[in-house]
């Protein structure tokens, strides 16, 4: 019975995570949901059913993640779908962002997801089933956005480990999907969510322009509906034919095709040099 599936969703107090958790609870699924703050999470989800397990988790911390996974297992008996959704945006030139600012973005967007994967997999391997859904971004495949260097690097990394993970767990009955949303109308670009560098350098006018565009023109004008994104994820979760890559939004669809064409053209243009290096 499909509705008995157990979900583990990180970063659930807002954005796509929140939309997903609410929809899952409405549709009768059991959901363990994580957030840094359990009161934020409870307030946002506002559901007192015993199918909802809110968990305060610092996903940067392996032992906090381990405890959360164990709690989900002891409460619901299993985990079927893991959604690594927690993450945040960072806009600034590579030179403007400090080592600390860069690492913090990787801590949440990359190492946090890896902590969840590392701690959830023993249970999924035991079950010989499960589906790990990693929320990347169109910025995990297309890097041409000035100012989003670290953010794109984190999301490219998510794509990279997800593709390899799919190969390593496929023989064990476990699926992996990378979800790559375009612009969705969440608070992703809003003040307090999108982080900007403390040290801004005047040469990077194009980075400031990108920052202003995202903060002032695109925020809350995004074409993507988070409710529909949640529905799309639920649709593919656990499906036998679930894709490895699921782009979300017509914008993401167009950008992905454009990027593939550009890379292919460049590969072709430099093919002679590329293939001149064998002994």
């Amino acid at each position, binding site marked *: 019975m499909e509705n008995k599936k157990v979900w583990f969703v990180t970063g659930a107090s807002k954005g796509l995570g929140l939309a997903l958790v609410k929809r899952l609870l409405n549709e009768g699924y059991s959901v363990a949901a994580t957030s840094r703050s359990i009161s934020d999470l409870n307030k946002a989800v506002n559901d007192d059913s015993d199918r909802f397990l809110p968990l305060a988790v610092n996903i940067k911390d392996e032992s906090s993640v381990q405890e959360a996974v164990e709690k989900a297992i002891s409460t619901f008996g299993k985990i079927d779908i893991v959604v690594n959704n927690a993450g945040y945006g960072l806009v600034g030139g590579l030179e403007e962002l400090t080592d600390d600012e860069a690492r913090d973005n990787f801590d949440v967007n990359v190492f946090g997801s890896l902590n969840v994967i590392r701690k959830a997999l023993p249970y999924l391997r035991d079950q010989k089933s499960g589906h790990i859904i990693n929320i990347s971004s169109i910025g995990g495949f297309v*890097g041409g*956005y000035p100012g989003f*260097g670290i953010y794109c690097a984190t999301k490219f*990394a998510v794509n990279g480990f997800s593709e390899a993970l799919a190969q390593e767990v496929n023989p064990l009955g476990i699926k992996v999907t990378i979800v790559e949303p375009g612009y969705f109308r969440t608070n992703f670009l809003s003040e307090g969510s999108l982080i900007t560098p403390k040290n801004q350098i005047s040469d990077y006018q194009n*980075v400031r322009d990108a920052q202003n565009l995202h903060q002032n023109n695109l925020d809350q004008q995004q074409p993507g509906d988070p409710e529909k994104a949640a529905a799309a994820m639920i649709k593919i979760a656990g499906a036998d034919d679930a894709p490895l890559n699921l782009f979300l939004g017509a914008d993401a*669809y167009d950008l992905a095709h454009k990027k593939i064409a550009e890379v*292919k053209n*460049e590969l072709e243009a*430099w093919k002679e040099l590329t293939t001149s290096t064998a*002994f």
Partner: protein
Amino acid sequence: MNNKKVWFITGASKGFGLSLVKQLLDAGQLVAATSRNQQELIEAVNTQSDGFLPLQVDLVNESSVSLALQHTYETFGRIDVVINNAGYGIGGAIEELTDKETRQAFDVNVFATLNVIRYVMPYLRKQRSGHIINISSIAGIAPGTGWAIYGAAKYAVIGLSEVLAADVKSLGIKVTVVAPGAFRTNFLTPDSLTLTTNPIADYEDVRASHSKYLKMDGEQAGDPEKAAASIIKIAGEANPPLYLLLGGDAYNRALTKLDALQSEIYEWQDLTCSTDFEYDLKSI
């Protein structure tokens, strides 16, 4: 090469880095080269050239990187080409590698590259010229089984390179990311490759993939000297590529990957394009 350029190359005591440094010095170029161990670097390069500046640098340490670049600039008066080459391979299922091992791989393969970029940019911006060449891998486009963390780090290098190119183009600075296939360096030897010390029996395919790679050591099709020559060639181009793949294997693997991805995107088009708000169509 018509004129003398100043090169800054990390991870120069072996592999591509060493081949690059030797070829450049032979061609009369000015080369600042870094290694964790200056003595090893001097012995490996083995030159009397005045154009060689060997630097002992801990790339994960920002002040060490900053000092090395300052030293280079003070010695040669400018910096033209930066090659972020230092890196190492790490193998294991995600679950078999600890958080610490994972982060160490990112330290050298990603955060060190970011340190160099952060501290070289003030010089390049002042010059309004320069070329940053980041060495990724074909694993940064299509990762192999059992190399998830290495692949993730190399994907990250490609991502940050693409954006950096967009960030600094208007400042007269170029960016290229190089994705080599299999080359006959010491990459597959214990000196450059770390494998998990915590293997889990379930991961038979990961073990099989690792044995296959290790068996390839010494048999790789790619000639590191030709790779170095190709990298030097693009550094002299007025319009260098953003992506430079090296090796027929890399070329084929990238195309296979892109074709598979493209097919998958077409296959899932309806679901992908089902998520926009309806009424937004007219406001665009």
